[in-house]
């Protein structure tokens, strides 16, 4: 059901993605996030091409945390920030983070295997929606919007996938303007 990957950090952090549809309480959820009650990154699945894109963002986030070099205040906002190619944090959270009226949410949970199990249980209780297989992400991705947002060129899509284009830009954010 859920997508799971072990990140490349020393601690071998587990990263799990859970996809929710028919979400009814995005508004209240945002309040919970602001109150620090949510132990997950809540992302707009429309902006995600594939789980790998999120895994790369999460990988970078845990590494920054281990080095004490996060740009944002929490690991969960850091993951969302890493999806962006711009250095403005608020902008990134607004573009990629769950919105007030969203009906679909991709939850990203990080920790040890046990911690992740607990956090998934918790977030599933907090979100008023239906858990679906992460493979349904493919139905939700808005490729045209992603392409526009990441400024992917048509030439580039001839030599590689949209996923590769997106991940390259994410990875090189700090020193590349395209």
């Amino acid at each position, binding site marked *: 059901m859920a997508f799971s990957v072990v990140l490349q950090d020393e601690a071998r952090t587990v990263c799990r993605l859970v996809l929710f549809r028919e979400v009814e309480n995005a508004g209240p959820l945002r309040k919970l996030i602001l109150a620090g009650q949510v132990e997950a990154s809540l992302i707009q699945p429309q902006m995600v091409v594939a789980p790998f894109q999120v895994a790369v963002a999460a990988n970078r986030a845990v590494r920054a945390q281990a080095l004490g070099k996060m740009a944002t205040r929490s690991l969960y906002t850091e993951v969302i920030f890493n999806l962006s190619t711009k250095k403005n944090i608020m902008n990134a959270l607004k573009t990629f983070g769950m919105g007030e009226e969203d009906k679909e949410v991709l939850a990203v949970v990080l920790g040890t295997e046990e911690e992740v199990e607990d956090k998934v249980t918790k977030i599933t209780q907090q979100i008023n929606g239906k858990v679906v297989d992460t493979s349904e992400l493919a139905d939700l991705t808005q490729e045209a919007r992603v392409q526009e947002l990441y400024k992917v060129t048509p030439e580039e899509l001839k*030599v590689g996938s949209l996923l590769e284009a997106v991940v390259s830009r994410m990875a090189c954010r700090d020193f590349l303007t395209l």
Partner: protein
Amino acid sequence: MVAVPNLNKKRRMDRQLVTQGAEGRVYVGDWLNHSVIIKQRFSKKYRHVDLDTHITQERIKAEARALTRCRSLGIRTPAVYDPYESSEVILIDFGLSSVEERAEDKAVDLYVLERAVLSTHPNTEAFVSCCISAYKKAGSNAAEDVVKRLDEVRTRGRKKIPQKPCTSTP
């Protein structure tokens, strides 16, 4: 791609050495469940460590930048996944690249290309000459300047070669 000396001593199960050159090593390995190429640059012990780190990091960034820019123009280069650890997809050495727009640099690049083709393939003088003409035709004014500079570049250095005019239209 920061040179990580420890890596030499510890045998990692998730990567395998493919080749080694003067500047570093290339591995193939698993990264976030993807198969990737990892390019790791050596640290140069003869440099001061701060300077070495700085130079290496600048080269890594330049390479990643060049590869990604080429990709956006439709040139088939590997996608860069992670330039900060010794885990990323880099296959071509662009470490000495820059994005200056000077005619001099472009002329030198053309010259290097010209000499490379001439030295590796016999009887290609006419071909090279036609390539230059095609370049001039495709690039208009800026290209004219570059080719003019190229003529100057050719007069420099030892081992000059005589120029044959282009006999066919591109």
